[in-house]
Each structure stands twice: as C-alpha cells, then as structure tokens.
C-alpha cells in the first residue's frame, strides 16, 4: 500500500512530467493560450496515458523486447485516434482550436516515456497509479499555465470576463514568448513545492 501511494504521489510534484522531467513541452506551451484548450488537452493526455499504460502493462510479458517501440506506438495511436474522433464529434470547437496537437499526442514524450520506463516493467495496478499520478502532475501545471495566460493575456477564464472592464490585456502572455516565461515560472514554483514536500531530503538540483 505504501509503495502504491508513493507511486501515485511521485508524479504530482517530485517527478512532475512537465516541470521536473521536462518532456512533452511543445504542445504544452502551444495549447495553453486558453483554459478550455488546457482542460481539453489534459483530458486527452490523461485518457491516452492511462489506457496505454494499462494495456502495455497487461501485455508486457508477451511483447518482444526488440520490437517494443512499434507496439507501444500502435497502442498509443489507437487511443489517440479515439480521443481525436470523440473530440471532433462532441467538441468540434475545441478540436478546431487545438488542431494538430491532438493527433500529436501519439508522439508525446510523456506517454512514450512512462510506457517505456514504467508500464513495460510493472504490474497493471502500479501502471494505473503511475498514470494517474503523472496525469495529476500534468494537469495542475498545464491548467495552471493556461489560467495564468488566459487571465493576463485576455482578461478572461473559460471565456468569462474576470478582470475589470478597464483591464487592458497583456498580449505578451498569449503569444509564444509569454508561454515560455509562464512555463519557466511554473518550473520555479514546482521546485519550491518540491523543497517543501521533501523537506530535509531535498538534494538540490532538479
């Protein structure tokens, strides 16, 4: 039980996929211009991550080592296609807004990384917990970034006006350079959280 809990908690701050492992960044900086995009991307990512880790963990003993990569890709691509088609059917606006970044979940490093490094060697229960932990870690950074960027860059959250009418949006935040700056600030925030979390055990560096 203790090990299971630590697998789940690890992905949230200590090994946050975006802010500590620093993979899957292109789509993160690209889609976080609005909160709706951030939530949609997170939902798609977490779904694909969870299903892929589960399936690959279940079949890990029958997947031949030297062709594991193509097999992982096939599994991930299957779930990504599902997300893509579901989004086109039920959330056409969101699908339009995120464009190519939904199909690109196939080659997202977070999913490939977790499948290769974790799901292909651990049992299904642990793989699911790992996917959920990583998913929560991904979600808070990605949605946090999109809240900051949409609020400052557009004065709204999910399209609702939050800032007073007189607020003049700082376009910098919805443009790519602002994405990099906000992302850097979230890395700093995550490192601060990691220090708090680990206390005495914090080793510095990442």
């Amino acid at each position, binding site marked *: 039980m203790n090990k299971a809990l630590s697998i789940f908690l690890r992905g949230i701050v200590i090994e946050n996929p975006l802010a500590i492992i620093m993979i899957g960044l292109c789509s993160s900086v690209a889609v976080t211009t609005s909160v709706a995009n951030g939530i949609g991307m997170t939902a798609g990512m977490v779904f694909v991550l969870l299903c892929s880790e589960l399936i690959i963990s279940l079949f890990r003993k029958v997947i031949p080592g030297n062709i594991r990569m193509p097999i992982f890709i096939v599994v991930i691509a299957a779930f990504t296609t599902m997300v893509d088609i579901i989004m086109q059917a039920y959330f056409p606006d969101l699908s339009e807004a995120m464009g190519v970044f939904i199909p690109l979940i196939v080659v997202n490093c977070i999913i490939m990384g977790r499948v290769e490094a974790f799901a292909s060697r651990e049992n299904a229960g642990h793989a699911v917990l790992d996917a959920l932990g990583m998913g929560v870690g991904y979600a808070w950074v990605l949605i946090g970034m999109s809240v900051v960027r949409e609020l400052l860059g557009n004065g709204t959250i999910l399209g609702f006006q939050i800032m007073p009418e007189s607020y*003049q*949006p*700082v*376009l*910098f*935040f919805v*443009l790519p*350079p*602002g994405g990099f*700056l906000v992302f850097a600030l979230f890395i700093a925030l995550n490192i601060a959280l990691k220090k708090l979390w680990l206390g005495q055990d914090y080793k510095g560096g990442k």
Partner: protein
Amino acid sequence: MPEHQSLLLSSSPHVFTNVSVRRLMLNVIIALLPVTVYGISIFGFSAARVVLTSVVSCVLFEIIFRAIIHSKQNFGDLSAVVTGLLLALILPPSTPSWMVAIGALASIVVAKEFFGGLGHNPFNPALIGRAILLMSFPAALTSWHRPPLDALGGASLTDALSTATPLAILKDGGTLMGAAGSLGTDSLPDFYTALFFGNHAGCIGETSILLILIGGVFLIATKTIVCATPVAMLAVTALFSALLGVDPLFSVLSGGVVFGAFFMATDYATTPLTTAGKVLFGAGAAVVLVLIRQFGGYPEGVTYGILMMNAVVPYLNKLREKKYGSIGKGAKK
C-alpha cells in the same frame, strides 16, 4: 579598529583601477542627459512623466526583488537608473505610466534579475522591456505625437498632435518626399537637417541625432565604450540600405539606429568582448534591422536587431585572433 587590523587577505588580482560600475554608469547617465532634457523639452510634461516613472519603478523593482530573494542590495551602482532611463528614452512620450511600469518590471525582473543580476543577463534589459511592451500593447507603442511646438516654429494650440514617424510613413507605402513633407520640409537637405536636429515625432530619446552623437562622443572620450560597434552598425545600416535601394542617409538618420548603436549595442554584459566580435555584432544588428524595416511587419527593427545579436554573443566571443598560449600555426597539435 586600528588601521593594520583592517588589512585584507585575498587572492589575486591585487591591482585595482578606480573604474567602478558606479563610475561607468554615471558616465552613461551624463551622456544620456542631453537627449533626455531635449526629449522632455520638445515632448513636454508627458515625456518627463515617462522618464520619471521608468527610472523610479526600475530602481524600486530591483530593491523589492533583491529583498525578496535575500540578495545584496546594489542600487548604489546606478545600473537600474541607467536601465530605467534607457527604457524611457525608447518609448513613445504618450505611453501610459502603468505600461511604463510593466516595461520596467520586464526589464529589471525578467530580463536581468531572473538571470542572476547585473553582468549575467544575456539580453539587453531595456530592449526586452520595450519588446515585451511592443508585443503586448502594439497600439500604444506605435502611436506617435508630433512635438507640441511644431517644426515650423509656431506654437501649436493643441497639446499634442497624432502623427506618424518618417519610417512609418515609408512603411505604409509613402515616399521619401512624403515623409519630408510630414516634417514641414520640402527638400531632401532640409529633411536631413530636420532629422539630424530632431524636432519630429518618435521615441523620447531617439529623435535628435546631434545630441545622441554628443553623448556617444563623450562615452568614447571617457573610454566608457569603444567606437567599433557603433561605427560598424551605422556603416552597415547605410551600406545595406543602399544595396536594397533605400536612401542610406535617411536610413541612418531616422528611427533609433544611432541611439541603439551608441547606447544599446555597447552594453557590457550583452555584447562581445573582442573587437572582431564587436564589429560583427554591430554589422549583424544592422543587417537584421534593415531587413525588418524593408520586409518585416514593423516600421522599425533596431530593438529586434540588437536582441537577436545578443543571442549569438557567446559564439562571437569565441572569435579570437589567436588562442591563449598557442605558438604559431602548428601549435594546435
């Protein structure tokens, strides 16, 4: 404490000059005073407000940030004052005060302190401040005011009159003579003279070429900067413009090239150390700025020209005539 007990034991270097950061920054401030005073005199109260807001908020942000991270306060070296002054001088006189404060925040906190403070910043802080403002508030940062006392010498009735800069007129498809007409001149020599003395629309500090040159010569005379970068930048701007069929004299006299060449491209932390590097830096910035003016979306490209060259400074610093300690050509092996 008796004198001998305050002796310091330290490792080399033991030879010190009396050149301090504070002294160099003071030189830059002195060199900037003529353009600042002139900018305030032609653009009026609004320009004074921008300058004051910028300098005060730069110093305040530096003090606050350093207090938050428990770092040593060093506002005494005046570097934040220089950044604030430079930022104000490359903004339009009508910029709202709160935008100036955001620019100061970007300059001091994002461009300088995040990277480790004075001397560690890869990009020119004042230019980052301007670039972020230009991206965020394109309308406010490209609305220009004609000086209240218009070029013809008569006192105008309005406080300020919206107008375009000569570069913006050309960008919108106007002719050189059209731009000349906007300054109330009808011949090219008169136009050049008007640009040179600077009674026209533009950023607070960039209009008077004469006063910028006086400041630049002062900096060179006091050995605060060397003339390699400004000369290379201005020469290449003229040459490359001529090559693209733009009037070279107009290219150099309009916009912020001269100001950028003397005050931005000579910043210590963000420009190359070697003479060859400095020349290439100036030339590269000039090529980029002329390309942006000619083909880009903005009428002016000095900011991005210099910022892009800032990014390649580590490579330019590798250009040395000879590696340290090597003897002749065969010394490599």
